[in-house]
């Protein structure tokens, strides 16, 4: 035994080190992905027997208006969420100075990211509340009539996205602040001597050096946009009349809420969301893989 161990220690060790983490990750993350795909071909209420119905859940999705509303909202989320990247960069540039107390200012700007999205959702509900909300009053003051953002199907999604952007911008800002901190000063000085200023400097000298920060900012923003669930659930519960649903929320509603336990149909929605996310994930992984193997 011990001779065998001596000879093979280096080959076996990684697997022994990895065993507990790998087992947990397979059990709770990797295998469930395949189980979900499997469940999406069944009609199942979560308790009784599951009945194989082939692609019927997906066929039903094609004619489901609520599904298209959720899908459309997901696209809106994705597009508008990307604003967090330039907005975070702007705030980071604004704050990248060394006046006294700057460290405290920076951490206070970062605050929204530390707070739970549930709390962020409640804060913005208060902000938008009809008659007394700060935003409602501001709108009334500017336009003459207030709008109950969260009760109006034309604005509700935008209202929730604004709430989501608040912590997301803070996150991107901190990424860029770290990036700006590490920009090579000699290159900036050299460019300055060559007469580069403002936008030109930002575009040709600074942004190329911020590329790693931009990559992470884009990754976390895309993932954040597609994961949006908490804010929709807290602020509107999908309403009014389902107009603020996103796929993640609609899936939950179908599979687990008072509307009934349709696990198979919910799983089918989750598979669609997963497929959309895989498009992005494989892009990210491909880039990380390339960086990793080049080194």
């Amino acid at each position, binding site marked *: 035994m011990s001779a065998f161990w001596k000879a093979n220690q280096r080959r076996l060790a990684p697997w022994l080190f990895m065993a507990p983490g790998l087992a947990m990750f397979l059990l*709770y993350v990797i295998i469930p992905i395949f189980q979900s795909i499997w469940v999406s071909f069944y009609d199942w209420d979560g308790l009784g027997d599951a009945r194989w119905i082939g692609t019927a859940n997906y066929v039903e999705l094609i004619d489901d208006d609520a599904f298209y509303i959720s899908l459309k909202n997901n696209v809106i989320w994705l597009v508008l969420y990307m604003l967090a990247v330039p907005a975070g960069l702007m705030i980071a540039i604004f704050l990248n100075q060394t006046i006294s107390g700057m460290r405290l200012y920076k951490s206070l700007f970062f*605050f929204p990211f530390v707070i739970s999205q*549930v709390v962020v959702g409640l804060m913005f509900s208060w902000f938008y509340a009809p008659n*007394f909300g700060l935003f409602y009053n501001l709108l009334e003051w500017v336009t003459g009539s207030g709008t109950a953002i969260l009760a109006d199907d034309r604005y509700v999604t935008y209202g929730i996205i604004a709430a989501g952007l608040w912590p997301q911008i803070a996150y991107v800002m901190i990424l860029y602040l770290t990036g700006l901190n590490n920009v090579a000063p000699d290159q900036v000085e050299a460019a300055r001597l060559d007469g580069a200023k403002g936008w030109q400097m930002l575009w040709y000298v600074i942004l190329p050096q911020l590329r790693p920060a931009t990559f992470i900012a884009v*990754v976390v923003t895309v993932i954040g946009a597609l994961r949006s669930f908490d804010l929709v659930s807290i602020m509107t519960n999908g309403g009014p009349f389902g107009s603020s649903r996103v796929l993640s929320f609609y899936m939950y509603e179908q599979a687990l809420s008072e509307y009934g336990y349709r696990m198979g149909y919910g*799983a089918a929605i*989750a598979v669609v969301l997963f497929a959309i996310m895989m498009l992005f994930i494989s892009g990210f992984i491909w880039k990380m893989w390339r960086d990793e193997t080049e080194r």
Partner: protein
Amino acid sequence: MFPRPITQLSGASQTLYKIAVPVALILWLLPLLGVALTSVRPASDLAQGNYFGLPSALAFENYALVFQNTPMLQYMLNSFWVTIPTVIGAITLSCLTGFALAIYRFPSNLILFFMFVAGNFVPFQILMVPVRDLTLSLGMYNTWYGLALFHIAFQTGFCTLFMRNFIKSLPFELIEAARVEGVAEWRIFWFIVIPLMRPAIAALSVLVFTFIWNDFFWATVLTTNASTQPVTAGLSSLNGQWIAQWHLVSAGSILAALPPVLMFFLMQRHFIAGLTLGAVK
């Protein structure tokens, strides 16, 4: 430095900047300040329509009311019960996986590494039905450990990415030297690598603490009542009961936000180091 340091500009611009920063901060934190102010506003102020002015008195009794009339304290304890074991579990597992993936060369190394990375990006909903089912069949539905076990497994993905990259940046000569001396592999892990990982462990602890404390989705999927629900799920159900009692909603919100905020302020440097990993080459 970019942008040009403000100290190189005229005195007037410097003053302008020093005024602009706090003003921008107040505008930025307006929703937070509004809620903080509402949380100490007496209910009578709200009834009289005093929503924005200074509170007529500081009503800390709002907080007392929240603790007396709701299971808020229980919710917060439940959150700790889920969060702390998750932090310990995920960090322990990822120290091991990170070490294995950073130190050893074997054929499936990169594939396994990217499996951890990719798994950590998937939407929660694709896991929901099977994980709920698994938790039910293990008899752990609606328990703190059922929720914590899932969190440990899921966070292991992100933590492995972090730990592996951290260990990879350590000088490999240390390990080679130990191997030449004939030190066993587990001793290399325990006596050489772990002591060097303290900054990574600190950074991940605060990050995982915050992520788990703030988790809402899994709390609603895997727990059902006040005896086990973490504070996020609890706050959501209280919000349903407290219709338009904004002084209570605000006080509850501030309470739920407090632990991660304190964590962030106490461990700021580690927190930001963890979050911005990979943002610079």
